[in-house]
């Protein structure tokens, strides 16, 4: 029997699209013939804004891109600028950055877990996930005073000294989290509805995953062993002992198990970082480039003059271009900074993992059912702020 296909629009305002994403679907009955994502509803022009600001002042713009893992964006930008200027940071800064970056990864995976489960019908998961997230936000607030957009990592070090009760707060979190993870597993892992909705859905093979330039849990779920923390270590990751989780089938259920395992490995790294945190200054000493600590400004003349000059004029970067990639919870987040010798960057390019992972949505979804589109969007783990920038 011949028929025509039906065009459906999953519009920009939808309860389950994690933001303002629009998908144009062409369906034949319940089966999808063609799917085309339309994005750009949150485009903010961040890259162009960063070109008109000094290197220091462009830092808070990076927080607002992937707003579920803000410290990871800060880390990538700071590492890229430090590579461009050739600054070497003290050991304590590296270990503190690793610890907070892994806390950020857990925070982002918790929000993913809550929203993915509520899309598939398990409505109580989101309340538990946000309860744990509040504990991590308490740690952020103790460090810098802000709940989400901290801009705690600065060029050359950290914004302030680590708070004196950070040890107590992080150990309380480390004690509580493994039991909660067992609770989450009891809710979802062997739940027959959850398994049936995610097993065999949104499958992608390893060769296709490499061809579509996927990264992060999407790539590791298909069995490709690629993690920037092991392949191109940055900020002292080579001193830590952890494993990389790999999936077998490349479907949504494997990626769910993989992300839970990533949370466990992050807890291991945080414990190692807390036990072995070295003493030392919290900023590098590079006069003319890195802001001097506030105590020095009140007593020494040179610090006052350098502080004034850095804030008003900035520093001149050498001519050239660098690229620094970090392993964000969504994939490979890269910063490409091209400098023309002045105090403002000529081009800041952010390699957005969610944008490139979302491009493969047609390959994941075509030939499947309409209800699987929701599961596919959830398992790709997109953040529209990063897709549209």
């Amino acid at each position, binding site marked *: 029997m011949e028929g025509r296909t039906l065009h459906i629009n999953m519009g920009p305002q939808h309860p389950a699209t994690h933001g303002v994403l629009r998908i144009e679907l062409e369906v034949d009955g319940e089966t999808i013939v063609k799917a085309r994502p339309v994005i750009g509803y949150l*485009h903010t022009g961040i890259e162009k804004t960063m070109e008109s600001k000094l290197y220091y002042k462009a830092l808070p713009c990076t927080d607002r891109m992937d707003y579920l893992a803000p410290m990871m964006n800060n880390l990538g930008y700071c590492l890229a600028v430090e590579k461009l200027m050739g600054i070497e940071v003290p050991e304590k800064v590296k270990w503190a950055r690793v610890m907070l970056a892994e806390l950020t990864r857990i925070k982002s995976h918790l929000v993913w877990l809550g929203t993915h489960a509520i899309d598939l019908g398990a409505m109580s998961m989101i309340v538990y996930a946000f309860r744990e997230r509040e504990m991590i936000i308490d740690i952020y607030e103790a460090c810098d005073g802000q709940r989400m957009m901290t801009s705690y990592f600065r060029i050359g070090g950290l914004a302030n000294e680590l708070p004196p009760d950070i040890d107590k707060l992080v150990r309380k979190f480390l004690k509580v989290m493994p039991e909660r993870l067992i609770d989450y597993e009891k809710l979802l892992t062997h739940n027959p509805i959850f398994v049936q909705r995610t097993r065999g859905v949104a499958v992608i093979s390893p060769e296709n995953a490499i061809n579509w330039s996927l990264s992060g849990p999407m790539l590791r779920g298909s069995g490709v062993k690629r993690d920037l923390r092991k392949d191109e270590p940055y900020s002292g990751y080579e001193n830590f002992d952890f494993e990389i989780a790999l999936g077998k089938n490349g479907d949504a259920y494997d990626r769910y198990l993989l992300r839970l395992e990533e949370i466990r490995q992050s807890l291991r790294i945080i414990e190692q970082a807390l036990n072995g945190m070295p003493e030392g200054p919290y900023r590098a000493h590079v006069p003319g480039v890195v802001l001097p600590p506030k105590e020095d400004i009140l007593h020494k003349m040179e610090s006052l003059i350098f502080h004034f000059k850095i804030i008003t004029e900035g520093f001149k970067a050498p001519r050239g*271009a660098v690229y620094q990639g970090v392993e964000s919870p969504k994939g490979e987040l890269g910063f490409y900074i091209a400098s023309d010798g002045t105090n403002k960057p000529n081009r800041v390019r952010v390699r957005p993992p969610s944008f490139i992972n979302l491009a493969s949505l047609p390959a994941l979804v075509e030939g499947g059912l309409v209800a699987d589109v929701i599961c596919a969007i959830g398992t790709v783990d997109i953040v529209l702020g990063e897709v549209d920038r």
Partner: protein
Amino acid sequence: MEETVRNWMQDRFAESIVREENFRGQQSFYIQSNALVEICQALMEDPDLDFRYLADITSCDWLGHEKEMGDRFEVIYNLYSLSRKYRFFLKVMLPAEKPEIASLTPLWNGANWMEREVWDMMGIRFTGHPDLTKILTPDDLEGHPLRKDFPLTYEIPQFTWNKDNPPEVIR
């Protein structure tokens, strides 16, 4: 690994290389625009080098610095080898009047959206792309925002002294 790549490029494509650079440990080759697809295909198929992962395609506008860089537009291809764990960059300079280059979508599916974004934001045309349309900016915005001659469109906020005649757009 840097030596291996340099020798491989010099052996096969010596006439297409304009210059080679190494800044802060990252190797990049400036090549001619007509040799791009050939070089990428050879890099992908070579079993020893195995550059099968295209990490990023991006562009840069060097208005005002054409003498040092060669031309106005620069397109940068970020390639990574999974087995050798090595990353390097291929860069192409394009003229200001007619910035066009061949598309890499036959080789990599992931290049589709990356090239659409470069077209939308910088105005560089990719010949052979299946669907080169706007992806990020609204449909009624004319021009390419990331070019240096497109203004930032910064609005001065309204205060009591300029409330009756607010200046709309500067810069």
